[in-house]
């Protein structure tokens, strides 16, 4: 017996309930990790049950092991390169033929395999009778029937995995590999034998033979690495000759003939082991589909559901955010009170607590938004929404599926960029990635709320029984402007740098399911965690840098002393309230002088002329610099610039009054526009670099958005000024 725990890789089609199996197996003992060099996340967990410990690796959901997408490549590279002790393939029992396709490829790969026929209850409800022992015999693979949502069959899966893991050779030997028929099989065998002559290729010889016949470039490369360029060249030439022969016989591309044969093998097994009687569950699914995918009702239903998600998020989330915000301010005040003056206290209170805190207070909003999105995802509605939106999205050169990352983008752009992985082609991914920052993320919301509150006093009208508020309309408008600009940007991108046809798409509609609470929680926990991690790492670092840039260079000693001299003089002249006022006045002047002298002040002044046509002065420019770190930092920067006379007073109410006194509403609206469009935050840039595979696209994203922001804001400010709309300060 091995001393190290066995490694079990979990694999399966999307919608097969693989994640539910993973959660059921590992409980809470899991963590998310990234594969080095690739961008796909893998979760690791441990499972004990009532036996020896296992390490569980959750691989991305895939339909096959062909390298059509990054997920497929990651899954297959993991199995070939890391050779897990056992591979557990999770299948949707109610869609067995399609799900077995992946299984046949795993058998071809020679992986020590266990099949978990998941969602058995659903399959029965849909009229499938599966003879699992017979199917197991036909495929030569151990099969366990599970219903992971109710934790049924999980212990058996673990037990079977342990058995297979302790004698993988026997398990692989028992497998019945798909037979390609008398026309093709001899060629496959011939090539397999030739490949097996190279010891490095021998363990997966048949797999490589099939892949070479399919002209799979990734495998060709790998063979080159393993067997040397000369041997690889010979093998490739052999494969090419055989593939051409197959093609001349069948009149179809070799890879298509092989895929057909695999389905033939599956159909044969299923014909014997699966009976199908009446469907009941499907009918219910169909009835729901008839309504939600209806040509006229589909879009309105989608809009209502989205409205509900946002309504729920903000209605429940805002009180929590306010509460956390109060706590943060109190904590910063307490630190200042206890710590007194000094650089370290300032770093902790003004930098870390105020800066990182500003990000963390939005966690409730993000988490609630994800609850809504996860319910839509887990219930199966998301695929329907993609269908409903496909026509619209197609017009701008995007996919129905592109809307999923766009929706997540309303929460946080970082996970949204990662969600573009569901798109199959690079062009579609890049287009979606480039426009994602135009979805107003959760971090921009507080900026809008602050500015709307400052510049647009609350008014209500009643239209019949419906109450309309100008603030709500403005907030809605800024979201819509973002979407409209995204549409425009996507259209332009598809006409220019990302020219080309939209790839035809095929997508499975999973049957509707009741989301399970545990899965939902795990989902939300992971995604909110991503946001918190961003706050704790990149934002913390940038907050410290910004704080330093705000603190240094310090005023020359002589100048700093002059304020002290004035304070002493004031104390000699005045008493009581007059003295306090004078001292406060001197403090304001000193802090303002310090800020202007600091690096941030200097850069802010430096870029101010560029932003002047937008109606922005050096203070706004300085705060916008901060928003590059994270959008919500705009608020704390403005707070610092304005509230310098009274360090404890950073509450938005005061800030609002000061803003309203200094700027007209038109400038307030321009700030909202600029925050919406310009400079994706550092975290977004970082994730775009990672997901697009280089700096080029991230740079394009950053620069086109910044130029667009400038153009739009200048246009609005100049036209507004000309027409004299909102040019008088309120205060």
């Amino acid at each position, binding site marked *: 017996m091995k001393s190290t725990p066995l490694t079990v890789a979990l694999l399966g089609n999307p919608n097969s309930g693989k994640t539910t199996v993973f959660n059921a197996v590992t409980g809470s003992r899991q963590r998310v990790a990234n594969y080095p060099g690739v961008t796909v996340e893998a979760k690791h967990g441990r499972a004990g049950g009532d036996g020896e410990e296992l390490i569980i690796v959750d691989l991305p959901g895939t339909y096959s092991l062909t390298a*059509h997408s990054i997920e497929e490549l990651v899954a297959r590279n993991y199995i070939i390169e890391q050779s897990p002790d056992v591979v557990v393939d999770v299948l949707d029992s*109610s869609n067995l033929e399609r799900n077995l396709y992946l299984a046949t490829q795993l058998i071809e790969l020679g992986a020590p395999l266990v099949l978990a026929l998941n969602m058995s209850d659903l399959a029965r409800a849909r009229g499938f009778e599966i003879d699992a022992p017979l199917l197991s015999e036909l495929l030569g693979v151990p099969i366990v029937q599970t219903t992971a949502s109710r934790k049924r069959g999980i212990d058996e899966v673990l037990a079977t995995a342990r058995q297979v893991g302790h004698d993988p050779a026997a398990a692989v030997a028992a497998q019945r590999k798909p037979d390609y028929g008398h026309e093709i099989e001899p060629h496959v065998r011939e090539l397999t034998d030739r490949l097996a002559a190279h010891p490095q290729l021998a363990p997966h010889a048949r797999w490589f033979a099939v892949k070479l016949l399919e002209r799979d470039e990734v495998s060709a490369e790998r063979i080159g690495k393993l067997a040397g360029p000369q041997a690889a060249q010979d093998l490739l030439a052999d494969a090419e000759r055989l593939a051409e022969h197959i093609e001349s016989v069948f009149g179809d591309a070799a890879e298509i003939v092989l895929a057909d044969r695999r389905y033939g093998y599956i159909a044969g097994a299923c014909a014997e082991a699966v009976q199908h009687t009446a*469907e009941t569950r499907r009918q219910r699914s169909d009835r729901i589909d008839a309504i939600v*995918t209806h040509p006229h009702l589909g879009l309105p239903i989608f809009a209502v559901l989205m409205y509900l998600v946002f309504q729920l998020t903000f209605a429940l989330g805002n009180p929590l955010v306010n509460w956390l915000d109060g706590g943060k301010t109190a904590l910063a005040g307490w630190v200042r009170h206890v710590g007194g003056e000094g650089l370290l206290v300032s770093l902790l209170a003004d930098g870390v607590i105020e800066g990182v805190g500003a990000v963390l207070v939005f966690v409730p909003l993000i988490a609630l938004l994800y609850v809504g999105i996860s319910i839509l995802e887990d219930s199966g509605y998301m695929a329907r929404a993609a269908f409903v939106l*496909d026509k619209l999205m197609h017009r701008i050169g995007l996919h129905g599926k592109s809307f999923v990352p766009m929706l997540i983008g309303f929460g946080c752009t970082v996970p949204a960029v990662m969600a573009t992985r569901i798109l199959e082609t690079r062009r579609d991914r890049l287009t979606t990635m480039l426009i994602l920052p135009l979805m107003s993320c959760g971090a921009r919301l507080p900026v809008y709320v602050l500015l709307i509150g400052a510049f647009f006093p609350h008014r209500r009208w009643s239209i019949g029984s419906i109450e309309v508020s100008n603030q709500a309309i403005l907030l809605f408008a800024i979201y819509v402007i973002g979407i409209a600009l995204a549409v425009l940007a996507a259209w332009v991108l598809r006409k220019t740098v990302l020219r080309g046809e939209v790839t*035809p*798409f*095929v997508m499975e*509609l999973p049957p509707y399911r009741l989301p399970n609470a545990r899965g939902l929680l795990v989902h939300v926990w992971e995604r909110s965690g991503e946001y918190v991690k961003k706050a704790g790492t990149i934002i913390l670092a940038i907050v410290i840098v910004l704080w330093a840039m705000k603190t240094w260079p310090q005023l020359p000693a002589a100048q700093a002393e002059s304020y002290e001299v004035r304070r002493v003089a004031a104390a000699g002249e005045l008493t009581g309230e007059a003295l306090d006022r004078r001292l406060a006045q001197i403090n304001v002047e000193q802090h303002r002088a310090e800020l202007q002298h600091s690096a941030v002040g200097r850069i802010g002044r430096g870029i101010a002329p560029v932003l002047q046509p937008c109606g922005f002065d050096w203070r706004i420019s300085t705060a916008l610099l901060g928003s590059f770190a994270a959008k919500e930092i705009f608020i704390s920067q403005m707070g610092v610039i304005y509230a310098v006379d009274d360090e404890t007073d950073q509450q938005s109410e005061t800030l609002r009054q000061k803003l309203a006194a200094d700027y007209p509403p038109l400038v307030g609206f321009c700030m909202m526009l600029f925050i919406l469009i310009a400079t994706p935050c550092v975290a977004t840039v970082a994730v775009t670099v990672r997901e697009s595979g280089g700096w080029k696209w991230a740079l394009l994203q950053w620069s086109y958005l910044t130029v667009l922001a400038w153009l739009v804001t200048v246009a609005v400010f100049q036209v507004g000024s000309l027409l004299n709309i909102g040019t008088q300060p309120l205060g």
Partner: protein
Amino acid sequence: MPYNPIDSPQPQAAPAAIPLSDADIGQEVVLSRVDGGRGLLHRLAEMGIRPGARFRVLSKGRPGPFIITMRHTRLVLGQGLVHRMIVRIA
């Protein structure tokens, strides 16, 4: 061969090949061919969408996408695809 008006079927035209985009809701069709590149054909083949595959149109958008049912599953086919899939009414 003697003429037998009862046994001899009416000379029926083979059902015309039409793009899937022209099929109606509820119609059963058999796929004849897909006009597309190698990559697309392979991807479809891996999903079991091959000449000879039989499916029913459940829902159609104009110009797309379509929902079809095939082997107990529901698939959404994007509008780019339904124009390239040539089918015969079954």
